[in-house]
């Protein structure tokens, strides 16, 4: 096991720079999720850690070794791919033991380690099957088995759950977390699904357009987003932004005043859907759509030309077209500069 130090990492394709000097410190045994919309460079960064993409600037160190110029096989990492990437003509056992075989490990050693990994992943009875005879979840487990068998310093996951159906995805999510708690191997996990990132990771790196927007624990990102992008990206349904006016330490939205920082200018008031409370002196909002999910009810509303989402745990009999009064919870307000998106 080892820490991973990423310093001033740059990557460009031709003249186009896609990663603009990233710094991430991943501690020994930590589970870090890289999350962001597609095209933000998260997969590229992972592939650079793996050694599948050349590095144009900066350094990546695994343990105390700078690995910039090492081929993937010498970096002591294991990677799980979105498409599983199992060798189709090899059995499950051969798939899992292949890296060891290439590294010229003894047959007994390979057998022992494959068996152990198969036990961890409940694959023992499938060891002789070919990948095409396995279900999606089983293939995913074989891909993880292939990584475990090598006992690497770092696990790299590239959107490993995207190809699974919703139910299996949640199940595998739990399995990955369990696995990490058991093995305590440093893990970097790329996903575009913020729920996956929130549930799995010790720390999350939110990326956009090749820069890091914020690094923090899941709840830290949720409670104290550094800017509008992080605020709206983390959390589902995402945070509401109400445009307002800042002056004299007060933010004016509609006809209401909220306490804010000093300064002057246009701002956005960020309110999480669960922090909108029914109150007679709140903003009048028109109900558009009501989506009951059982445990909670999502209500989509319209307020001064802006879309607003609210979530209630209690059951209310709202109907479309009705006007209800909602008040933001004053303890959970986020104020962002309307131009830069930075938190004020």
């Amino acid at each position: 096991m080892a820490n991973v130090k990423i310093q001033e990492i740059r990557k460009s394709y031709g003249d186009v720079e896609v990663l603009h000097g990233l710094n991430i410190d991943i501690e020994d045994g930590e589970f870090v999720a890289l999350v962001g919309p597609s095209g933000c460079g998260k997969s590229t960064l992972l592939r650079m850690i793996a050694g599948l993409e050349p590095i144009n600037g900066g350094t990546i160190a695994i343990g105390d070794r700078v690995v910039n110029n090492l081929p993937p096989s010498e970096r002591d990492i294991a990677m799980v791919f979105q498409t599983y990437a199992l060798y189709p003509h090899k059995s499950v056992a051969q798939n899992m033991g292949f890296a060891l075989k290439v590294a010229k490990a003894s047959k007994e050693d390979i057998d022992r380690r494959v068996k152990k990994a198969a036990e961890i992943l409940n694959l023992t009875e499938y060891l002789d099957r070919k990948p095409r005879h396995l279900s999606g979840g089983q293939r995913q487990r074989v891909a993880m088995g292939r990584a475990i068998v090598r006992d690497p310093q770092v696990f790299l996951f590239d959107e490993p759950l995207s190809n699974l159906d919703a139910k299996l995805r949640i199940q595998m999510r739990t399995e990955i977390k369990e696995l990490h708690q058991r093995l305590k191997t440093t893990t970097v996990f790329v996903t575009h699904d913020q729920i996956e990132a929130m549930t799995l990771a010790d720390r999350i790196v939110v990326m956009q357009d090749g820069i890091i927007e914020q690094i923090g624990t899941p709840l830290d990102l949720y409670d104290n987003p550094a800017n509008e992008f992080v605020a709206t990206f983390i959390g589902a349904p995402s945070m509401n932004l109400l445009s307002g006016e800042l002056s004299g330490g007060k933010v004016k939205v509609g006809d209401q005043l909220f306490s804010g920082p000093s300064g002057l200018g246009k701002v956005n008031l960020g309110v999480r859907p669960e922090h909108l409370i029914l109150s007679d002196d709140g903003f009048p909002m028109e109900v558009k759509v009501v989506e009951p999910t059982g445990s909670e009810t999502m209500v989509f509303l319209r307020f001064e030309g802006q879309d607003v989402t609210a979530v209630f745990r209690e059951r209310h009999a709202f109907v479309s077209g009705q006007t209800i009064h909602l008040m933001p919870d004053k303890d959970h307000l986020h104020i962002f500069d309307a131009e830069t998106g930075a938190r004020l």
Partner: protein
Amino acid sequence: MSKARRNPVNMVAAHAILITYTLIALFPVFVILINSFKSRKMIFREPLALPNADSFSLIGYQTVLKQGDFFLYFQNSMIVTVVSLFLVLLFGAMAAFALAEYRFKGNTLMGLYLALGIMIPIRIGTVAILDMMVQTGLVNTLWALILVYTAQGLPLAVFILSEFMRQVSDDLKNAGRIDGLNEYTIFFRLVLPLVRPAMATVAVFNMIPIWNDLWFPLILAPAEETKTLTLGSQVFIGQFVTDWNAVLSALSLAILPVMILYVIFSRQLIRGITSGAVK
């Protein structure tokens, strides 16, 4: 096609068309085969009749086999075809892998340059090729034919195979790299097995024109010891007299090896080995 749309009328129509086509395609082969077992007189009297007790004759085969060189011709054809195919597949696949897998300057240009050969018939260059072979002393060797056929087969091989290689999952190749395979092992152990159906297609496309070619053997290797089967059979076709028994027998025998090779490759054609590799 979904099961629901498979109605009996369509099925019958489709099969009727396919069977008609098969009959048309097999008819000449059939005529050659039956006539090769008939006496000369009967070939002309009733070309379409099956050999019977009266007309049955192995005279053609006897002539061909007595002509002692026939096995040598056969062997020459075999060597030229198999070695050319091997070289076309090996170098074609390697070039295709490089074009499909690596980003380098001029990648597209190189691909176009290699594909250019598809559009230009190699026979246009016959004089230059002959000149080159004379100067390198390769005239009347099997190598002359092998080299020409390899050159002739490469453009289409590279073109078809690079398309297929692009479809091989990057993740799979990267998994191999992480597992410590070098690029050659990735090519031979991971990618080649996955494009086997495409390799078989290329092999079949190249095999038949090489086996049947008369042009280059006639020009580059007409010597007795390097004659190919097609060229060798020509001795039976004269300006004034043609020994039809012998010609038809030689042709019948010539069909066999290609058919065997075809059967070997066509098994690969249908094998869907990629299923289960990636989702």
